[in-house]
């Protein structure tokens, strides 16, 4: 039996909202350590990997490993029914047909319960090896979101060039072009505002802005984003959850076809 209680419904709300636009159906794998999700979008370009650790819950128990096949569209509708500050509890049997979501208001004696039918989702599980990256950038997540949103107005692709002392984001479209250059910067008072670049090799990669704008939907989950890049390899965009866990996106780059 699975029972996980969040102190505030808002965390799960944000998580589901972050991934429901790129993956519609996914398996929530529940173990005694927490809940993990791995899902690939239909076009097999973007992979979502989520870990909600045991510590993210105020109460958590999972006696046997279970898989919950969830339609995120329906699930997000259910989660919207609760207030942000409500307690949220997820309940499932050992071999469940459905999953219960329970909201409890902290002040009033109001309890609402929703049950969602589970699905049998036939998905492959991909093994993600630890890769060596040429560059690791840590920056405020809101800054990255703004860059993506701004440059999306110009083009479908975002080019990221990292050199010794700067990170350059640029886009070139029919109507014009634009670029944003960031340099490493340390803010002692607000460490979240710092821009950190760890560089082994310079990189020059291009990504589809369509996918990046799906990724930045997770901005509210964390104050910072970590971007790991390597030549001709899927990039890793990671949002760490303060309470324990992470939401990672692996995005395949665009290639110039050489023939």
């Amino acid at each position, binding site marked *: 039996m699975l029972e996980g209680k969040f102190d505030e419904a808002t965390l799960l709300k944000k998580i589901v909202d972050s991934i429901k636009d790129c993956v519609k*159906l996914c398996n929530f794998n529940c173990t005694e350590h927490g809940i993990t999700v791995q899902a*690939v979008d*239909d*076009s*097999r*370009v*973007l*992979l979502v990997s989520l870990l909600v650790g045991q510590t993210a819950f105020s109460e958590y128990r999972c006696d046997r*490993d*279970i*898989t919950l*096949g969830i339609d995120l569209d329906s699930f997000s509708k259910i989660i919207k029914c609760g207030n942000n500050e409500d307690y949220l509890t997820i309940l499932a049997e*050992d*071999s*469940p*047909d459905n999953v219960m979501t329970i909201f409890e208001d902290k002040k009033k004696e109001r309890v609402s319960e929703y049950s969602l*039918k*589970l*699905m*049998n*989702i*036939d998905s*492959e*599980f*991909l*093994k*993600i*090896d630890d890769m060596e990256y040429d560059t690791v950038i840590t920056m405020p997540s809101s800054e990255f979101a703004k860059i993506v949103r701004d440059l999306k107005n110009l083009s*479908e*692709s975002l080019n990221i060039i990292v050199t010794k002392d700067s990170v350059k984001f640029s886009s070139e479209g*029919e109507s014009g072009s634009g670029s944003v250059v960031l340099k490493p910067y340390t803010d002692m008072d607000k460490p979240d505002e710092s821009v950190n670049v760890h560089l082994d090799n310079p990189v020059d990669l*291009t990504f*589809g802005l369509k996918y990046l704008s799906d990724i930045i939907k997770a901005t509210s989950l964390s104050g910072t984003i970590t971007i790991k890049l390597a030549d001709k*390899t*899927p990039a890793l965009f990671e949002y760490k959850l303060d309470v324990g866990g992470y939401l990672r996106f*692996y995005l*395949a*780059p*665009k*290639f*110039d*076809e050489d*023939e």
Partner: protein
Amino acid sequence: MGVKGLNQLIKEHSPGAYREFQLKNLFGRKVAIDASMCLYQFLIAVRQSDGQQLTNEDGETTSHLSGMFYRTIRLVEHNIKPVFVFDGKPPVLKGGELEKRLLKREEAQKQLDLIKDDGTVADVLKYEKRLVRASREQNEDAKKLLKLMGIPYINAPCEAEAQCAELARGGKVFAAASEDMDTLCYEPPYLLRHLTFAEARKMPIDQIAYSDAMAGLDMTKEQFIDLCILLGCDYCETIKGVGPVTAYKLIKQHGSLDKIVEFIKENPDKTKYKLPENWPYDEARQLFLNPEVTKASDVSFKWVEPDVDGLIEFMVRQKGFSEDRIRSGAEKLKKGLKSGVQGRLDGFFSVVPKAASPNDKKRKDDSKNSKSNKKTKRK
């Protein structure tokens, strides 16, 4: 044209071979398209609201050009790189089938003449559509258009679908696109169907994986070809009374078409099936096994910028298309050519074989009972 019931057989025995998806998921792929089949489709399907074909001022049909132009652009806009393959000479064996088609057309013409005056519009249209075939000039028009659009095409020495499959097998393109299930006999790694259908029909693309299909049917390449011959190909007749289910059973039971023929010949009283006279099944089989194709390694193609002035001259001046629309189409072609190719995650991450947990199994049993969707089931 079209092997009867093959679709159903594959769906039944190897559901895993089928994948349905939207056009946009094919981005970055190169595909070889059976152009002759497309032209025929366009001539049938691209019509005005009153059901008449599109024509220019001189009354020349332009449906095929409209279809070729706009649907190719749609592919390019989705970042797909098409190569068109045109039919060459038909194989000698196809003569019988072609004759049959000719007879059918003559029949349709007769019917059309009969009802021309007092028939309903729908009836007239029905017979008119049966008359449709892509003429030599229309084929040439299409080639000229493709050249101006900067889209490569090749002339197959013989059957276009065999050439498409060869290109896919040789790694020049990702898949062969044809509506014709015959194409599978030529072993393309993937066969795509409904690729050039109108967007408005909202038909998902069917992708059939050859190796998965064979694994599901548990057949060799030769057995599969024999199966297709039994189901009815373009090259020879079938045994009367043998449908998809029986054909599958016969191949499984006897192992090959030769054995089936032998068995029927030796035991005429034990079976109700009669072989067609002078049945050239072996020749048909050879056509599938060793089709006349240009080797994939001997061809190369390039996608280049469209020749806008040429397009205007041809499509607008000669064929009466609207200049604005041709210009905007050419823009889209240019844009599609420029943007880089989106990579896929495949190849970077390996798939972990899934260990079925007990509750998975339970759900799978459920899904067997309800024969609805293949991929996901709601309980």
